[in-house]
């Protein structure tokens, strides 16, 4: 009975997504790498938490500039 290695599927999918996102722009590819990293460290909840923190950071950014 023939088998194929498990890890290859996930690697292939990650690679395909990476290539596709690089075509659309640098920002998307960078964000995807960050998302993968956040997922590896703490799963989907970690991804959501970091993205919401990013949103808050953008909203607070100008306020800090003004205060500064």
């Amino acid at each position, binding site marked *: *009975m*023939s*088998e*194929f*290695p*498990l*890890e290859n*599927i*996930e690697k*292939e*999918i990650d690679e*395909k*997504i990476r290539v*596709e*996102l690089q075509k*659309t*722009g640098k*920002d*998307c590819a960078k*964000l*995807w790498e960050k*998302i993968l990293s956040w*997922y590896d460290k703490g*799963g*989907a*909840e970690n*991804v*959501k938490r970091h*993205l*919401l923190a*990013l*949103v808050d950071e*953008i*909203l607070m*950014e*100008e306020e800090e*500039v*003004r205060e500064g």
Partner: protein
Amino acid sequence: MRPFRLVQVIVSGFRGINRRVELSFEKPLVTLFGGNGTGKTSILTTIEFGLFGQVGYLSGEEFQREDAIVNMHSSEKQARVELILTDGEKVLRVVRVRKMGRRTSGVATELTVEFDGQMFSGEKAQRFLEELLGVSFEDYVRLVMLHQEAVAELVSAKSQVRGEAFDRLLGLKKYTDIVQALPKSKIRSKIKDLEMELNRIGVQEETRLRTVTEQREKKARDLLKKGLAFGDLSPFSAVVEFKQIRNSVYKLADETGLKASEVELPEPNARSLKEKLEEINNVVRQLYDHVNKVFSTERITNELVELQELQNSIQQLKEEIQNAKKNIKEIEGKYGTGGQIEGKIGQIEKEIEELKEKIDENEKLLPKVRELEELREEIVEIDEQILKITNELGTKDDIKSKIEELGERISELENEIERMGVLAKLLSNAVSYIRDTLVNRCPVCGSGINPHEIVSKLEREMQEVGVMKIRKLQHEKKELEAALKRFKENLETLEVLEKKLSERRKREKLLEGETKGLTSLELESKIDELRGKLGKLVSQKDELAKKLRELNELENLIEKREKSLEDLYGKVRDRLAVSADYEQVLVAKIEELKVKSSKIDENRTEYLNRIRDLEGRLNTLEGVIEIVEMDEKIREYRKLMPELQEQKEKLRRKKDKLVSLLKAIEEIEEVVSRVKMEASKDVLEMLQLRINEFYGEICGHPYFDALKIKPVTRRGRTTYEFKAYNTGEKRESYVVTRFSQAQMNEAALATFLALATTQRTNLGFLILDDPSQSMDEKHKQSLAKVMIQLVKQMPQKTIIIATADQQFQSQIEKETSPDIYQKIELHGWSKEGPTIKISL
């Protein structure tokens, strides 16, 4: 590298296992056979707990309320799992210990891993273990161990549950989770907030300047219409006007005797002008109250009202006295004085008494007249009755002689009847004698006789005398008796009538003497006439009595009013301190008060007009101050414009950054979903043949000979269509709508086995928990054959099956041989754990 087979499990204090249990897995096919609740699943889950520190499907609120991992009777209050694995050359020893906690997940475990002379612990040990075996916990539960719950989820009718189960099975759950974690709606909401804020600032910036400018123009037009010049609309002009108004206010205060508070001149700005305007307005209000108080006519008006009321009362009393006197005069003119009226009343009362007596007399006579009239009618009636009797029967003497005559005749008839009776008796006796003796000679004459003839003749005579004559005489007597009776009765009646008539005539004579020949009609008419006269006299008397009362009342009224008038004069005397000519003094005093009140009114009106004039000027000044204030605002808004622009710019930058982030997230979502979809298609395409092989061998459906699994997108989510397919007729149907529970389990099992036997891991075993659920004997047999076939096809792997199914267990035993098969039998369970028997 060859995969690691499971060689031994040593466990204590874990789930349903309390005391230490050692299990060795020595053959490629192992069954854990036992009834429900004997600890099969507990033994299977020790393996995933040992390797990953987790147990799948132990999730939910209740699991967070108590510890479901450590056995509740464990004396050491801890679970310990030791796994021995080998790849044929080297041994891997995994030991995991967990203390009892208050909940199922989130409690730390201690892990020790020994391999090839190395020992690891903690997180490092976990990383080493997963790298060595090439599986994560997620991979383990989808590729190595088929839980009963996973089968149910694969064939769920809910597309989301089924979608997640297939994603998990195909190893794509990571991408679904990431897509679901992307906070798109949150970012969109933030962008919308920023847009609203930008819009608000824009509107504020544009409209508030325009609004205040328009208001200023309108106000300026109004003031110019009132006669103000453009130059009057400046703050300096407002201060000048304020000064002039203030001087006028102080002048008026001096004139009216008000000590007004000092108001300073304002600065030429809106705030100061408004403040001072309020102060001077307060002074004007004080002035208004002061004028109204000092120049009040209230006291004079009250006095005037009082004196006028006094005057009116005097006038009214005088009029009433005059009217009463006039009325007295009128009554006396018509009816005389009070004494005369009283005399008239006395005379009338006397006449009334006389009339009453006359009426009484006539009323007493009236019954006698009526009796006489009735008596006469009765006499006529009696006369007629007597006449009727005498006409019919004759006079009284005639009737008496007739009665006598009839009496005699009746007496004769009675004698005759008696004689006839004697004769009849004789004849009867003669008949009886002759009949008894039958004599043939006459006893009287002695001549020969025929007795029978004689009897016959005598009987005929008897008949004639007895029946005919006596009956005739009796009839005549009866008629005469009736006539006698009638005569006697009439005689009696006649005598009664004559007696009555005599009595009536006697009474008639008496009454004729008393009633003087008057008829009842005449008497009644006379009484009516007298009563009419009486009524008139009574009316006259009542009218006179009424007038007499009126006279008395009028005299009383005059007396009372004159007394009241004296009281009012007394009040005038006291009030005005005069002793005579009260009315003239009163009129003069009223006139004086009217003049005085009018003068005060004039003064107050003049001052109030001046105050109103000042109020008008202050009102206009308030309008000028509003212009000054709006001019200040216009200058301020113009100054603030750059600041608002800067604020808008910052908001725009934030918005642009969020839009870029959202765009990137949407791009990532689109790419991830697309790539995942393609990957799932590829994997399923690759698995399709093997799925159908297992499906055909296990299920053997009579119509649908294949399965088709296809990823689709529904409402933005990926799910999977799980269909059964007839390859000959090319017809398909959803598994959940057509298949029985057993057939659905078989389809799900085929899918799991296809994947588990296709994807390669470094774990050399496969675990199936209750795979034969709901199957009939035939399918259990098919499944047993497939299991044995797998053992032969995958010599590097051990297949571990937990089952409570006796038929399936028997099929396995029947189809296999001891060299490849091992049975671990669980007989029962106690607080110490399962009772285990291992047979080889």
